């Protein structure tokens, strides 16, 4: 599965983006997410005001590629730092200091280290944002007024209308069986 999922995109063909259910606690949300995923819904997402262990797994999202991005970033930093220093100190601007070798690699270690961290760290943040599809100024979920509480104390589950098993009436009745506080249709 691609890391940047299509159904996370705000652009949608159907007039309904999905059905959203609101829950009171983290426990309820995780339970509901497990049940929804077990019921065969694959295109769903959950929202919580803080990271909940196991929630991403509950909606079937097990692996992200951030670590790979950071590894590539860090190695890029390391290789560029070493090649830059080698090129400067040995090829383009050699300085003879007391007859010491131009390729004095021990003194290159620090800049290599720093640039590894710099590139790795920047790739962690930029990679995380890019894989998350952020910045994204508009998103349909914000059309639900109650959703403002997702950043405070409420927990939400959404089944996207792009899910093959999605059916306005059936999905709604399934979600009500999970005993949410409310169910809202999310216009796209």
């Amino acid at each position, binding site marked *: 599965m691609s890391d940047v999922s299509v159904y996370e995109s705000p652009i949608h063909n159907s007039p309904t983006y999905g059905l959203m259910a609101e829950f009171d606690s983290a*426990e309820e949300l995780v339970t509901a997410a497990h049940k929804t995923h077990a019921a065969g819904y694959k295109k769903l997402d959950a929202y919580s005001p803080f990271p909940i262990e196991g929630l991403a797994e509950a909606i079937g999202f097990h692996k992200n590629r951030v670590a790979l991005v950071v590894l590539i970033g860090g190695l890029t930093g390391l290789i560029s730092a070493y090649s830059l220093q080698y090129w400067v100190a040995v090829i383009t601007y050699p300085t003879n200091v007391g007859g010491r070798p131009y390729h004095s690699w021990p003194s290159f270690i620090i800049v290599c280290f720093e640039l590894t961290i710099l590139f790795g760290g920047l790739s*962690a943040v930029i990679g995380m944002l890019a894989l998350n599809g952020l910045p994204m100024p508009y*998103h349909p979920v914000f059309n639900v007024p109650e959703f403002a509480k*997702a950043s405070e104390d409420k927990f939400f589950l959404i089944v996207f209308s792009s899910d093959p098993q999605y059916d306005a009436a059936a999905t709604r009745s399934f979600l009500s069986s999970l005993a949410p506080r409310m169910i809202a249709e999310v216009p796209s």
Partner: protein
Amino acid sequence: MAANAQIPVEDRRVPVIAPGHTFSTITEKISNIVLKRPISLGWIFGFLIVFGMMNMLMVALGYLFIKGTGIWGINIPIGWGFAIVNFVWWIGIGHAGTLISAILALLRQTWRNSINRFAEAMTLFAVACAGIFPLVHTGRPWLAYWLFPYPNTMRYWPNFRSPLVWDVFAVSTYLTISLVFWFMGLIPDLATLRDRAENIWLQRIYGMLAMGWRNSARHWHRYETAYLLLAGLATPLVLSVHTVVSFDFAVGIVPGWHTTIFPPYFVAGAIYSGFAMVLCLAIPIRAIYGLKDFITERHLENAAKVMLATGLIVAYGYAMEAFMGWYSGNQYDSFLLWNRLHGPYRFWYAALLACNIFIPQVLWLRKFRISTGWLWLISFVVLVGMWLERFIIVIVSLTRDFVTSSWGMYYPTKWDWMTFAGTIGMFLTFMWLFVRVLPMISIFELRSLLPEAQVHEAEEVKQ
């Protein structure tokens, strides 16, 4: 039931968050400081003072740009002076922020969640203050970009075998990583502010800064991975920065600088002064903004313990310097020891020992660790002591090195003092603004500390 078996002993320590809080009270309490709380006269009055001090820095730097570094007390043999003393002091203060946010995160010290946000802000502001000094010390700050390797018409490149070039990379990496670490931690809280702001402009500003964060489980999953990796990268980084700063000294051959103990001793000193600054800021802030529920006695006590431990490492560093002065049999090293104890700067050295080693030992007593007044005072003393340490290292070594004919004395001028005091004003000005425009405690990380945030049933449901 396995979960219960893991906690057989009752935790009798003061909790990290005072009992009775919910997700919503935490959110409200912290975000209201930014969104609802009116600006008090005290805030304005304090701001005028610190902003005035910051303007003094602008005057001092403006005059410096006109006249050059001759307005300072530096002259051969003391070429470094206040600029380097203050640079090392400020950079050191920044270290506590990264230690709290990165190292304590890796060690799963949950108490860090209440203090990491403003400690990281403190890091940024301290590094910004630190950065000014080497820049203006170059004498021609408008050419400071020459420090970076870039293709230029002079066909010149930096010398990568010089510790001063390493420093450029270490400090700029440190600033960048601290900034993105801090900003990344802010994103979910900016989303909270966006959702809670009633003013359309505030909604837009916080909304733009939050970049459309919507608390999605997939986003959190990547966010947590990125945060953990960033913490893992920042951990060696913070240890490396002061190590590289110490190389500026240790690679030189001046007595008192040329020692292998410098890197660990500098790093410990940095964390020492950083925690002192965290306490100096946290104690008044928690009282003024009513945050004693989140920054509890536990935080103050833990910070005091870190200070005590790093202070002892610093004391070991001093002891080893003195020991090597005697044991090495090197006449310059033993003279340096004599000169510190009996030379013209002996009172400064005595003050240093008092501030950094003797006075903080009272922290062994719990009474001093939990009394906010005493703790604030001791932290302040440590800040002074750590500044004196850098003064002793830079000045005492340079004033009297190898050849007696080239000895001298260092007298800082009023411009030196104005620049130093000015950076304190700049640091405090940023801090003053920070507490009013951004959540100074990480809201989402505090939410995750509440017992309601723990999910237990997940295992059974999977079946």
